């Protein structure tokens, strides 16, 4: 990875830095790579839309197979899925996956111009509905349905900031108190500035190979990708989601018994042949503190409505039974969109190898990432040792 922050440089530099670090970690040369998959950076014009080729050019053209993918926040997971499919399909032995971003300060905004056929443009033009507005709608609903409080939400930030303080790659490395969360400005009632993740620059990369290749190169017990979930929702999608102005109508067709977010992890568990009881740790997509509590339920760590209790009981903290966001999460990193699903897998890798330093989960054997990309991109990766 490239350390996350506000560095003010091109995404290409962050991505190539992360790529070189991943290759060095794997003990491979760039010329050994048979395929490169780039997760696209939509704010960076032409090079960002063809990220695979952009990174390949920056590293030095060497004739590798190339793919560029975009799936909003799930772009990194789609890139892993593409690489894994190529390896399983026998198209490549070693694939380099790269994602990086150079994000603007403040709210993410849609591309410019008059584009009334774009739902993302419309929700800003017609409603002023920013991403934090949606996070706040979910938070408010949790308060009404389950009795969650702003103090519960603040404790997620306290937990993740404590983990992030132990991670040299995180942008924010200072512990945060509940009082500091409560003293920060309200962004979208009931969420405050420290309940919502920042936008960041950053990059992450992975080297994936076949098991046969890994063993041949002296890695008898590598971290293995056991599942990659890239599911779409099922009609009717009955939970208001970014960038929707309305849900699908459930008057004619009943919604699936589980929400879209829950289906993301379920698909990964099914493919991996494991369940939530097997997890040593999880990295979930904490765009807001309240949303992290929802993920506990959606990845099956507890029943609906019990997320705050799980947090209060210390289950998801470092030292707990299933630590969540041991990296510090987006709370400590901020969003670097095409990189963050890859960063989650980087953290699983270090944890499963036992090289996560002061934030190490003792004896970690199985981990899951969970993420959701705008416009219906599910994303979860199961990795095992």
């Amino acid at each position: 990875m490239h350390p996350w922050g506000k560095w003010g440089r091109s995404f290409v530099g962050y991505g190539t830095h992360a790529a070189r670090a991943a290759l060095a970690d794997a003990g491979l040369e760039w010329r050994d790579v048979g395929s490169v998959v780039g997760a696209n950076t939509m704010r960076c014009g032409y090079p960002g839309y063809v990220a695979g080729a952009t990174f390949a050019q920056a590293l030095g053209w060497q004739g590798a197979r190339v793919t560029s993918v975009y799936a909003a926040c799930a772009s990194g997971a789609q890139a892993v899925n593409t690489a894994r499919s190529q390896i399983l399909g026998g198209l490549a032995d070693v694939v380099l996956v790269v994602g990086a971003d150079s994000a603007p300060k403040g709210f993410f905004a849609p591309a410019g111009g008059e584009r009334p056929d774009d739902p993302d443009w419309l929700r800003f033009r017609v409603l002023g509905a920013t991403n934090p507005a949606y996070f706040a709608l979910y938070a408010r609903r949790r308060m009404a349905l389950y009795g969650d409080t702003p103090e519960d939400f603040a404790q997620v930030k306290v937990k993740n900031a404590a983990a992030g303080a132990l991670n040299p790659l995180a942008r924010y490395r200072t512990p945060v108190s509940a009082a500091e969360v409560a003293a920060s400005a309200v962004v979208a009632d009931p969420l405050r500035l420290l309940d919502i993740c920042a936008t960041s620059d950053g990059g992450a990369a992975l080297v994936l190979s076949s098991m046969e290749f890994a063993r041949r190169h002296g890695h008898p017990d590598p971290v293995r990708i056991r599942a990659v979930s890239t599911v779409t929702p099922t009609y009717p999608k009955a939970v208001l989601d970014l960038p929707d102005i309305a849900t699908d109508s459930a008057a004619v067709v009943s919604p699936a018994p589980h929400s879209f977010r829950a289906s993301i992890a379920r698909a990964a568990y099914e493919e991996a042949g494991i369940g939530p009881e097997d997890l040593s740790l999880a990295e979930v997509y904490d765009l807001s503190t309240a949303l992290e509590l929802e993920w506990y339920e959606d990845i099956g760590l507890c029943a609906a409505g019990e997320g705050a209790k799980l947090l209060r009981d210390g289950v998801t903290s470092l030292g707990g039974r299933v630590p969540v966001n041991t990296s510090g999460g987006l709370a400590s990193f901020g969003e670097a969109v095409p990189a963050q699903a890859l960063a989650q897998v980087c953290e699983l890798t270090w944890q499963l190898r036992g090289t996560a330093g002061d934030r190490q989960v003792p004896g970690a054997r199985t981990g899951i990432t969970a993420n959701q990309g705008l416009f219906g991109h599910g994303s979860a990766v199961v990795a095992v040792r």
Partner: protein
Amino acid sequence: MARTRRPVVAGWFTDDAGGGTDAGGATDAGGGSPDGGFRLLGTRCSACAAVFFPREDDACRNPGCPGGGELTETPLSRRGRIWSFTDGRYRPPAPYVSDPDAPWEPYTLVAVELAAEAMVVLGQAAPGVRTADLAIGDEMELVPGVLNEDDEHIWTTWHWRPATGGAARPGADGEGNA
């Protein structure tokens, strides 16, 4: 004024300034009398009865639809109950239109669940409605509103406001709170 009223998106709601409704072209959209004729407009599939808002005019998106139907315009329910709500304490980026020289006035966003359509529709609350006036489950009603004005147009939209007629909570009448 020479400015004309124009919907911010064509075809999403009925005309609030004529056409036989009782809106009477009021520019004070948030505080006018309830407009029984003002509706959000979706489309309904004639083959499977699925409803879409914002309107879907190309093809039915229900994967279980037998097909062969047509999408016809259908007005949505005027009233529903709050699914969730929030506000915007910071100025949103473009294409939201606001005067950068004027102090930012937070707006309230309300997601309202319509029983008949079994769907949730997001909208801004009428001016003066604050989050402190609202609770999940409260009944809301649809009213015409103004999103912004420029030299040529008054851009109209829909607003949600606490329902009148005794269904809303006491005090939640849209008068704002100090």
